């Protein structure tokens, strides 16, 4: 079996993907689910770290959701131009998004309302929790496309 593309016109540098952008749908689902879990996470942080923890948790959730939307927007926008551009945008977008998260935290690190422990734990728990929740739905959709699993 050859590793060469079957058709040279299907090179990644010139192939573009028109039509629906599934990442946008995935990130909007994650956004919706983030709205569901946000009160719970904020309440837990409020119990353990008070009002500062609640505000920090809200800030952390916002960082995670904006990060998802930004990543999805970048992939969806560049996939319409070229797959090669999409790859570059994902790699440099990774650096840019890490830098933006770093900036978002550095800007508020000395604020009176910040609780860095609550903020950090919220970022990890929200990011991983929402991903696992979404993956469960996506995996079921891909495995049994006709069944339309409940969200």
């Amino acid at each position, binding site marked *: 079996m050859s590793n060469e593309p079957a058709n040279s016109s299907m090179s*990644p540098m010139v192939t573009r*993907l028109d039509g629906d952008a*599934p990442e946008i749908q*995935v990130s909007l689902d994650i956004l919706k689910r983030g709205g569901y879990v946000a009160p719970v996470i904020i309440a837990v942080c409020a119990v353990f770290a008070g009002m500062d923890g609640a505000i920090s948790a809200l800030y952390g959730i916002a960082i995670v959701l904006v990060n998802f939307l930004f990543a999805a927007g970048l*992939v969806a926008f560049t996939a319409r131009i070229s797959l090669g551009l999409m790859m570059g945008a*994902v790699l440099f977008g990774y650096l840019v998004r890490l830098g933006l998260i770093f900036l978002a935290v550095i800007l508020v*690190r000395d604020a009176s309302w910040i609780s860095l422990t609550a903020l*950090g734990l919220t*970022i990890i728990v929200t990011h991983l929790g929402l*991903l696992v929740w979404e993956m469960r739905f996506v995996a079921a959709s891909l495995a049994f496309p006709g069944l339309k699993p409940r969200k």
Partner: protein
Amino acid sequence: MEAIAALAALTGDEAKAASAAGSAGFAYGLAAIGPGIGIGYLVGKSVEAMARQPEAAGMVRTTMFLGIAFTEALALIGFVVFILIGL
């Protein structure tokens, strides 16, 4: 050279705090390398798959996006360790 001299002039708690901040920043940098390699490999293979089989692009893009986000979680964990220790 001035920065090294300034670090050498630190004593006690200041030196400890500077060391912690420097180590945390170094750890964050190291923690970002692995996910960077992982995302590059993941997206490269996904692009290859989409170029070979454009009709499966929707499925590939969905799993690629989730894979990117999962891989990025490793960098976020490194970042959280950085903000908890270094800031």
